């Protein structure tokens, strides 16, 4: 892999995905990469937070304590966010999915602060997330509109719009995943450039850039990803109302 346009300054920090160890699967060599490891760390952190939430909520009190009020604020915020966009009719069915994916993307994006390489800066992760949303959109449209209604929806508003509708459906996961991927990768490349090219003076002040790229852009992108997922789902599902 070539990244020699950065090597001219003699730095040793780079932003590429590295393989950690290979293993054999059906006669193919598959690599465990840094993306897998940081995604695993994010998942473990999420699981630990869930266990803490479970234990706190089991002995919930009328007047919430510190931890309990933090969890209640988070859940309340997510519920309101989803309710505002999807409406009271569809919000209860989809808030588990949207909330989970929001927390996962948010933790992945901010994991750059803790020295990990963002799992979402790998096209594999974001494509998986995009395909997840794509299948949720189509399956819920199938369930809510019945198979015949699903086929009829593809012929809206006129029958010769069918190819356009199919292209529009296929473009959804691609644009969702590429948006998330490119935003995170641009942040990583920007920081790698600063650490390599400005190595002698890169002390303390890159922290503000970390705050911008990892926290602000990360929060924004997870927000946007969830909002677009909800918009797609609502548009697909609300065809059943007529």
């Amino acid at each position, binding site marked *: *892999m*070539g990244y020699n346009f950065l090597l001219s300054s003699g730095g040793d920090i780079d932003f590429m995905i590295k393989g950690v160890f290979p293993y054999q699967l059906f006669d193919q060599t598959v690599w465990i990469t840094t993306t897998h490891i940081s995604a695993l760390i994010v998942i473990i952190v999420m699981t630990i937070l869930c266990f803490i939430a479970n234990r706190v909520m089991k002995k919930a009190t009328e007047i919430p304590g510190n931890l309990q009020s933090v969890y209640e604020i988070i859940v309340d915020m997510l519920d309101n966010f989803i309710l*505002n966009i999807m409406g009271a009719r569809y919000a209860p069915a989809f808030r588990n999915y949207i909330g989970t994916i929001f927390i996962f993307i948010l933790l992945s994006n901010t994991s750059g602060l803790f020295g990990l390489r963002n799992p979402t800066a790998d096209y594999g992760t974001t494509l998986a997330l995009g395909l997840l949303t794509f299948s949720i959109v189509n399956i819920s449209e199938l369930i809510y509109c019945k198979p015949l209604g699903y086929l009829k929806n593809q012929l809206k508003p006129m029958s010769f719009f069918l190819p356009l509708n199919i292209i529009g459906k296929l473009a959804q996961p691609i644009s969702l995943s590429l*948006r998330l*991927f490119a935003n995170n*990768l*641009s942040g990583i490349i920007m920081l790698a450039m600063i650490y390599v090219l400005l190595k002698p003076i890169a002390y303390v002040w890159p922290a503000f850039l970390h705050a911008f790229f990892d926290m602000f852009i990360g929060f924004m992108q997870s927000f*946007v990803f969830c*909002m*677009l997922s909800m918009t797609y789902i609502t548009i697909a599902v609300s065809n059943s109302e007529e």
Partner: protein
Amino acid sequence: MEFNEYFVLGCSALGAALAVFTAFGPSLGQGQAAGMAAQAVSRNPGAVGDIRTTMLLGQAFSETGGLYGLVVAILLLIVKPLT
């Protein structure tokens, strides 16, 4: 003139620079969207939440073109499909 590997590499660097230039359009559009949102808030301060959501959605959509340019530039520089 000799068309060797370095010539192709230099040309793909130029191509990457041109591809990143696609950020020109989306940033103009995003600025306009933010300005319009500010006007809307000053007209109707009660609807701040709705205006913010709509603005962010529109900006996220219009950003896509610039990001495709960024992806093309990164592919040209790192994966180097042409050399």
